């Protein structure tokens, strides 16, 4: 029953946000076009790089494209569902966050799921199409590989969720959100290519400290049969711990919230 209520709230908020997004159809079309353009340009860059250097750290062209497509899927879904995080600062500095706290549903849910960005849907489809094409070209894909790929993608969303919760918690405490979320985006951009390409200690930092590798590289590697079971367990451990810590941090932030301007 509760899930039904939350789904309805999410749906209504998404309708509202979508209506605002399409107030200027010209702008909406340009934004979608820009996202597709950005995606295409980096793809061209990777193809060019592979053509000029024969192989990128031992990976074939289709493997590199598969990594990139997986990155896009992992990158786009959080943007689609948790776009409200990008608007969160305005709620805190205007004092409107107080209304989230007084409503009869979770303020965390309202802060994260306050309206999905439908302008990301074309990018989602594009990512999925590219994943299917590149996986087919790589060949030798097992059912277990696909299963673990899906599980690790879900695991990546848990990590992304934890990082988004940490971002809005920082926002509640300091009113700083925009730079933190863009910093998260820049860090995850490092996962557009397999993270093991980077030299140590950077590749270690991106695995153990900021889990970009677990989010972006691990799912693709498991599908290719390049990831051992120890790493899979490690991935679940990291997401579990991170999610738990983020929820604790959110509780801490709420306890210290002092209603900025209302």
């Amino acid at each position, binding site marked *: 029953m509760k899930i039904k209520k939350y789904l309805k709230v999410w749906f209504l908020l998404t309708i509202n946000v979508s209506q605002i997004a399409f107030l200027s159809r010209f702008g909406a079309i340009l934004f979608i076009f820009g996202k597709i*353009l950005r995606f295409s340009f980096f793809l061209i*860059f990777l193809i060019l790089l592979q053509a000029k250097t024969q192989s990128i750290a031992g990976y074939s062209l289709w493997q590199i494209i598969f990594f990139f497509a997986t990155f896009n899927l992992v990158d786009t879904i959080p943007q689609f569902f948790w776009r409200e995080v990008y608007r969160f600062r305005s709620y805190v500095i205007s004092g409107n966050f107080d209304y989230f706290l007084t409503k009869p549903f979770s303020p965390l849910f309202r802060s994260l799921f306050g309206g999905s960005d439908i302008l990301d849907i074309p990018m989602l489809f594009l990512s999925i199409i590219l994943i299917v094409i590149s996986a087919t070209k790589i060949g030798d894909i097992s059912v277990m590989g696909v299963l673990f790929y899906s599980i690790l993608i879900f695991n990546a969303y848990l990590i992304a969720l934890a990082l988004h919760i940490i971002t809005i918690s920082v926002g509640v405490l300091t009113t700083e959100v925009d730079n933190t979320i863009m910093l998260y985006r820049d860090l995850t951009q490092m996962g557009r290519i397999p993270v093991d390409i980077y030299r140590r200690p950077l590749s270690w930092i991106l695995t153990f400290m900021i889990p970009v590798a677990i989010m972006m590289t691990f799912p693709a590697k498991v599908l290719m049969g390049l990831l051992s079971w120890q790493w899979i367990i490690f991935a679940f451990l990291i997401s579990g711990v991170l999610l738990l810590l983020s929820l604790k941090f959110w509780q801490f932030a709420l306890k210290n919230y002092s209603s900025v301007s209302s």
Partner: protein
Amino acid sequence: MKKYLLVAKNTWDETVTYRLNFVMWRVRVVLQLLTMYFLWLAVLPPNTTVGPYNQSLILTYILGTSLISSLVLSSRSYGVGDEINQGNLSNFLIRPINYFLYQFARDLGDKAMNIVFSAVELTILFLILRPPLFIQENPTYLILGICSAAIAMIMYFFINFLLGLIGFWSPEVWAPRFIFITVLTFFAGGLFPLDILPKNLFLIFKFLPFTYLLYFPLKIYLGQLAIPEVLQGLFISLVWAILLYLAMKTVWELGLKIYTAQGR
């Protein structure tokens, strides 16, 4: 002239006031730089080449784009569109101030701050990473490179201002800018040196203004162009600068005719 210097100084002070914002912005710039740096380091081991670039030249190119970006691409004139849409432009039209020079002075203040930070960041990165950099010792190439970067800076100001002028006709000023930045990153050579593209494609790029914003000044610095090629490139970029200036003036005058100070 004094008042425009004051505007530039105010922009500098403004940046210092919102320190955290600026520092976070620079952290993002460094992260983006490191991504490209390590990518190229991985795909181009020592003793290998991509087109005319060995590892030392490509790393110099990638680190050089950061410095040139601070000079050419850092800007405050992106706010022109919003000022038109909110009617704030009226404040400037009734004052004894040249709006172009005002915006250019703001750009200069912003560039000064970004260059200082960029230089410090690159020094720190150099000390940590110890990359095999190429140092240009020929003063002719250094002077020509600086000239090219100066023209690029002016060209970028005109392009940026032109984009802001969309505000006279449409409230949607950010979507075109989003597309512009996407195109710019690729076409200006921010991801890779443009001459590794297929030859026919690069020939087309040579006549586009974007080529002369990042790629061309760095290519001069690397000493990979003969002097006649450099002069030809400087001529093309000058022609673009003049054309963009004329376009900016014309669009500005057309825009003023329909400006209604909406929002004030």
